[in-house]
């Protein structure tokens, strides 16, 4: 075979190009023009705000419809009274307390609980929280998330937030684990693989574990502090950026730029949506229900054995004086390691019993539950993905919990509400 010189090669290339490439004037379609509007900052930011507004609004309306409209009635009016009447034993017995209702003290007497939020039993709170509260929220969250993914809007959002996320050592694609984290932190930690360097993955994992509340947490917050959920999320997001900025300054390593190929906007297909939904919901059902039931059981055992009381006494100075929450918050914080949603439901129980005396204490306790430690599933995932870096992430996490928990207490004191 004859070897071509440089000039002959170029001539061959030219002739191939003449054969296969056609030059015509490309006319922009309306879809192209709309697509451009979504990535230009001046027009893209209001559109992004509208999309996220729609996301949040549909999320809260749907979760409210299923949980408040049907599940609370089913569990509080039928399931709890049926178990209270038919389960062997009575209030105060070990097995009954663990499985059905731990009860609470009113005027010196142990009385049965009125709702599955307060009962803390494996068969009551342990089923109501994952099925009645969290499942509807997770369902609608993943549905909306899948629609955003499949329409091609997520890469556009990545472009819009790229500059801001560079300030905290990340880049635009960090929006993917961040938004996923609002559903569940476990796939979000797995999604940190999208980031190139160890530094970026460390920062992202740490921020996810501390400052991004999962869908389960958000849905239960919507139930127990509906007027303050927005405030809590804003507080956590400000911590996300502030702490990210600090981590970017102190963590050694590179934060490279990204080059994104933006796909065109398209209609999602039902087949893809249903497949993705099934995979995600199945993952939730398999991991959440057993963990919440186990969490309810462990907390019940610790409570009945007096260990919670013992820990409450030891931690009282830290809780009362630094964080501004009652010492009884110890039990929900232990539960938070199993499931954060279970922990917030337990805080609601403490509030109903008058232990948490006002809304501000409740907000502080909810924030503390969010930031003090990742849940067990996220912890295991971080261990798998982060390895040795996990120790650094946990130290950062404890520092953040101490500072941001104390800062919120300070804010309440300055406002004169505590």
């Amino acid at each position, binding site marked *: 075979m004859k070897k071509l010189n440089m000039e002959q090669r170029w001539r061959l290339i030219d002739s191939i190009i003449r054969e296969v490439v056609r030059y015509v004037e490309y006319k922009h379609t309306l879809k192209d023009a*709309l697509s451009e509007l979504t990535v230009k900052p001046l027009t893209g930011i209001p559109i992004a705000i509208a999309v996220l*507004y729609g996301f949040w*609004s549909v999320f809260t309306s749907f979760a409210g*419809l299923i949980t408040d409209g049907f599940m609370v009635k089913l569990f509080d009016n039928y399931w709890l009274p049926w178990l209270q009447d038919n389960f062997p034993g009575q209030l105060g017995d070990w097995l009954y307390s663990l499985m059905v209702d731990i009860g609470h003290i009113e005027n010196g007497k142990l009385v049965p609980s009125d709702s599955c939020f307060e009962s803390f039993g494996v068969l009551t709170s342990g089923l109501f929280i994952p099925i009645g509260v969290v499942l509807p929220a997770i369902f609608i969250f993943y549905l909306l998330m899948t629609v955003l993914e499949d329409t091609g809007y997520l890469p556009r959002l990545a472009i819009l937030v790229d500059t801001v996320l560079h300030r905290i050592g990340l880049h635009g694609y960090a929006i993917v684990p961040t938004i996923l984290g609002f559903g569940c932190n476990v796939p979000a930690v797995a999604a940190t693989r999208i980031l190139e360097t160890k530094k970026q993955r460390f920062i992202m994992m740490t921020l996810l574990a501390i400052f991004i509340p999962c869908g389960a947490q958000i849905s239960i917050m919507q139930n127990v502090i509906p007027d303050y959920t927005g405030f809590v999320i804003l507080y956590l997001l400000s911590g996300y950026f502030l702490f990210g900025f600090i981590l970017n300054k102190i963590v050694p390593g590179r934060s490279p730029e990204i080059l994104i190929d933006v796909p065109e906007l398209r209609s999602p297909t039902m087949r893809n949506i249903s497949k993705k939904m099934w995979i995600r919901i199945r993952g939730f059902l398999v991991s959440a229900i057993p963990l919440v039931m186990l969490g309810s059981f462990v907390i019940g055992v610790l409570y009945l054995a007096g260990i919670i009381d013992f820990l409450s006494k030891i931690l009282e100075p830290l809780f009362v004086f630094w964080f501004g929450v009652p010492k009884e918050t110890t039990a929900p914080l232990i539960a938070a390691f199993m499931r954060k949603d279970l922990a917030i439901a337990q805080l609601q129980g403490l509030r109903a019993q008058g232990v948490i005396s006002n809304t501000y204490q409740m907000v502080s306790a909810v924030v503390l539950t969010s930031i003090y430690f990742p849940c067990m599933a996220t912890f295991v995932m971080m261990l798998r993905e982060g390895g040795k870096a996990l120790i650094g992430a946990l130290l950062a996490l404890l520092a953040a919990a101490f500072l941001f928990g104390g800062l919120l207490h300070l804010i309440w004191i300055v406002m004169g509400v505590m």
Partner: protein
Amino acid sequence: MKNVLKWYFVSLGICALILGFLSVVSGIGGEGFIFGFLEMPSDIFRGVIGGFILLFSGIFYIDGTRKMEDIHQLAKVVMGSILIWILAGCEIFSMICSSIPGETGWLNSPQGFLVSYMPPYAPSVVLLPFSIIVLYVIKERG
């Protein structure tokens, strides 16, 4: 016809601007008000953020009507309508969700169900029918 459509969208944009501004003000003040069939929301989320989106929809309309025959300008008008559809869609979805369950029983009574859809409406719902005209413009353009 072009001029009629141009002034139609300018007027719609001005209405969106005014309603958006009022919505932001009532949201910040925390006191919504009812004016005929129009209800200004009193909360930060629907009032301030929703009002802000409505304001931008007005800006998109007004800016897009300059040389509307250009596809990029038309896209701004379409985006103005899309913002209203997002807001109104959320309002209507919220109405549907709150109309289904009853206060004590499982389902709402027929009367209670219908009452949920009675006025007053949020500004985006009032603007919704007027914003649909943009579909005619897209169809005409082919």
